[in-house]
């Protein structure tokens, strides 16, 4: 099983599955009430220099209230796994990102991210290691499985592989080249869910993106939830639990926690707000003004929601059609 090629990209987080096991060993198995505010969750579990990841798809089910709190507290020199839109733009805008395992940061239909451009083109981001979208998800999956790598036929033959930290080997069964993706174990993962109990047992409606994998790939896991439900509801439908409590370190009640992103079946995304960010992000000064207004100058998620306004939030809810 010869190694045929090795990506030139820096291994930002080595796939140390033994250290991950040791960390997981000491996480409590007890049912502990983990409810806390964004402020407590982030100050307690996110540290300067941490490797963090957010789970979402586009602007859908984005842990925005948690990310805003990371920005508010100015957690810096962050290593970030990058499949993101609005929320990673915030981290980039605030200059908190040191290095990226990158797959996509952009504004979808609104085009490329000006914040990404500024941070990368200036050299302020020290490493931009490339992967495909599924490549990053599979790296989480490898970590979630407790194995140091996972094979894939993505990325082969491309510069995406050349500038990654993957390796290409000769498959010992078929003889064909295959890419091996190293497990990506996060210091901190953040996921926004439809509902969770106070211990952290969580449910998601609709598609689940890569929540299953990221939850299991995180040493510390912060959950924000639109709704906190009694554990009896979890127990009545255990097959709906996508994240079991023992993975979770903090449970944050965050209604409209994905705003300006959407939450399937609950509220739509705030298109004018996102457009206003697209405009603001074009220029350093207006970018900072946006951060000032929506993050630094508000104390917490509730104040942020007050700033958006109950009326607007109601509209976003009302836009959801009957299923």
């Amino acid at each position, binding site marked *: 099983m010869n190694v045929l090629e090795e990506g030139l990209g820096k291994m930002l987080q080595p796939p140390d599955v033994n250290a991950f096991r040791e960390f997981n060993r000491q996480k409590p198995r007890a049912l502990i009430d983990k409810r806390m505010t964004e402020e407590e969750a982030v100050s307690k579990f996110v540290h300067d220099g941490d490797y963090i990841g957010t789970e979402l798809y586009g602007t*859908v089910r984005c842990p925005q209230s948690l990310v805003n709190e990371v920005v508010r507290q100015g957690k810096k020199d962050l290593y970030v796994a990058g499949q993101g839109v609005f929320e990673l733009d915030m981290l980039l805008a605030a200059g908190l990102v040191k290095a990226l395992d990158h797959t996509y940061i952009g504004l979808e239909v609104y085009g490329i991210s000006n914040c990404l451009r500024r941070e990368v083109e200036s050299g302020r981001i020290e490493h931009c290691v490339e992967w495909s979208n599924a490549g990053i998800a599979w790296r989480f999956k490898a970590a979630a499985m407790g194995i140091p790598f996972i094979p894939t036929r*993505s990325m082969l033959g491309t510069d*995406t592989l050349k500038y990654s930290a993957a390796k290409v080997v000769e498959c010992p069964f078929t003889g064909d080249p295959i890419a091996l993706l190293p497990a990506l174990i996060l210091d901190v993962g953040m996921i926004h869910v439809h509902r969770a109990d106070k211990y952290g047992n969580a449910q998601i409606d*609709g*598609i689940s993106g890569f929540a299953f*994998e990221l939850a299991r790939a995180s040493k510390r896991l912060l959950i924000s939830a639109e709704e906190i439900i009694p554990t009896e509801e979890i127990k009545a439908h255990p097959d709906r639990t996508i994240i079991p409590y023992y993975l979770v370190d903090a449970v944050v009640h965050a209604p409209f926690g994905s705003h300006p992103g959407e939450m399937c079946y609950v509220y739509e995304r705030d298109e004018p707000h996102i457009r206003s960010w697209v405009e603001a992000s074009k220029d350093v000064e207006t970018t900072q003004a946006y951060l000032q207004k929506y993050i630094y100058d508000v104390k917490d998620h509730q104040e942020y929601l007050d700033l958006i306004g109950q009326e607007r939030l109601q509209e976003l809810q009302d836009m959801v059609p009957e299923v």
Partner: protein
Amino acid sequence: MTEKNYNPSELLICTASRLMEDDTTAFIGTGIPMLAAALAQKRHAPNLISIFEFGGTGAVLEDLPLAVGERRTFHRALAASGITDIVETAQRGFVDYGFLGGAQIDPYGNLNSTVIGDHDNPKVRLPGSGGGNDVGSHCWQTIAIMRHDKRRFVEKVDFITTPGYLTGPNAREEAGLPPGTGPYRVVTTLAVMGYHPQSKRMMLLATQPGISVDAVLENTGFKLLVADEVVENPPPSEDELRILREEVDKEKFYI
């Protein structure tokens, strides 16, 4: 050339839509592929099975999604799972078509959506692979939708984000990519291109209405092969435009 009753976006959407077949699976990304798929479903391919990267399979595209994960991507769908399930489904050979875009394309259909300039010292940092590399690796046939000019159609892309035919015949297989996969069509506002079956280089198959072969060649930054017979695409029909405007994108978000 008479005045056209459609804009360039509408032309791209209608052209891409015609390439979509009933009872096939198609990996749909943000933007034009979504509109093309919705148009196809409402017109000639009611059972086109849309596959969205973050989990939606077989949605009824009544309203247009603005993002690849939102509720419209699994509205009345047959399944709603997650990204690994979807891309593994493609890796197992279940996805017939994939739609791609990029900032640059080369004669072998390799696409760049990562950087202009040097990777570690870029002139322009682009969004990155996203699902592009996965779609280009696993789908049986990929269709690129591009703006057509010399800066985009280049002899050598600055960065191969998504594999086309790489360096030519057999290069995909030698790299370990699944045999029998690769670029199928390139759709632009000027033309529709395919690939030469042996050399795997891009080849002009059809021009868009009112566009000459020379105009296509002039706007292509590499030597484009030309099929023995180049047809001219019919313009978007009344029917296509009506459905597109009145049903697919009635809020005029894209068109």
